[in-house]
């Protein structure tokens, strides 16, 4: 094995000298020195020269990147599910039939206030809507107060309306 001084004199970056590389495997201090000059020398010292892929590192990188692009393209193609127009049309028709059917059912069996009504109600007798009118429609006096006494009984019970009029005689 060569000495440390001889190593430092003979050492060059990217050296393939077996004596220099042999010293590197034995001397840690010279390995540190060599690593500062050429970091790759550590791998070469460990036999790293054999780890370089065939065709060189650049060819290896190009090959890896090509593989990456191929895989990426494959995943893109796989993600795009092709649906035929006939299937799309069938799905749309099914949805339309379902929605329309539900609307027709709703229209026929739950008619709204303005919608069509069951036939039975068309022939039904007219509903009489009663309105309430004031008992005293008009009263001729400018000094009168008219009070309709609320009825406690049924609608057909006796109704009382009092007319308080200063113009009326006192001896009624």
């Amino acid at each position, binding site marked *: 094995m060569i000495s440390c001084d001889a190593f430092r004199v003979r050492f060059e970056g990217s050296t393939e000298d077996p004596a220099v590389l042999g010293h590197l495997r034995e001397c840690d201090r010279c390995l540190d020195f060599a690593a500062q000059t050429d970091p790759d020398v550590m791998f070469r010292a460990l036999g790293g020269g054999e780890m370089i892929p065939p065709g060189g590192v650049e060819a290896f990188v190009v090959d890896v990147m090509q593989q990456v692009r191929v895989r990426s393209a494959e995943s893109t193609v796989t993600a795009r599910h092709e649906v035929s127009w*006939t*299937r799309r*049309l*069938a799905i749309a*028709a*099914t949805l*339309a*039939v379902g929605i*329309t*059917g539900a*609307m*027709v059912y709703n*229209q*026929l069996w739950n*008619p709204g*206030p*303005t*919608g*069509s*009504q069951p036939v039975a*109600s*068309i022939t039904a*007798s*007219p*509903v*009489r*809507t*009663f*309105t*309430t*009118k*004031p*008992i*005293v*429609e*008009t*009263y*001729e*006096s400018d000094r009168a107060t008219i009070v309709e*006494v609320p009825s406690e009984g049924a609608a*057909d*019970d*006796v*109704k*009382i*309306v*009092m*007319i*308080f*009029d*200063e113009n*009326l*005689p*006192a*001896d*009624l």
Partner: protein
Amino acid sequence: MKRILTLMMALLFVSATSFAQTQNVGKTLTAKTFVFKHKQADKAANVIKSILSAEGSMSIQPTANSLVVTDLPENLKKIAAAIATFDAPAQPLQLSIRLVSASRGTEAKVDSALRDVASKLALLRYNVLEHVGTAQATGKEGEPGQVSIAGYRADFKFGEYDPASDSVQLADFKLFRQEGDQLAPMLKTTLNLKLGQTVIVGATKQPESPRALMIVVTAQR
């Protein structure tokens, strides 16, 4: 696949067509003209406006005494029935009028002819009820009437029957009191009387007044 697609399209067409037909039937409006023989068209408008649907409308033609109503077919049937009831010939009416002198006394005293209204008047603290007199009047819608009751006279006009409120109007009801050989006017009013219902119209100067004149009226067909 083609068969399924064809079936789906056929179902879609049938469903859409039936739905469209249902919608159109529900919204179809029909116009009908009603010509009145016995009543005024403008008064009929009040009768049918509560029956008219949200889509319905009407227009009065006074010169022809008619009413053009546009509404849903089923609603027009109800309107036609209501108009037929309304446009009836003048109905005979019967009016019963009782005059009661009411006062507040220390002891209750009620004429036997007034027992049916005594409990009501007791609510107003009138416990002394004197029967002045009773009169009956008959007539038809639109006709005038007159009754005399023990020193009083009432002039009035039978108004039209209103089916919506089941009432008849007693228009221009004027009450006079005999004072010597003169008739002194006491009050003038127009009353809405529900058929068969007894109405008590009390007249006095003030709520605290010790005396009041009660006019007990009932209208019937």
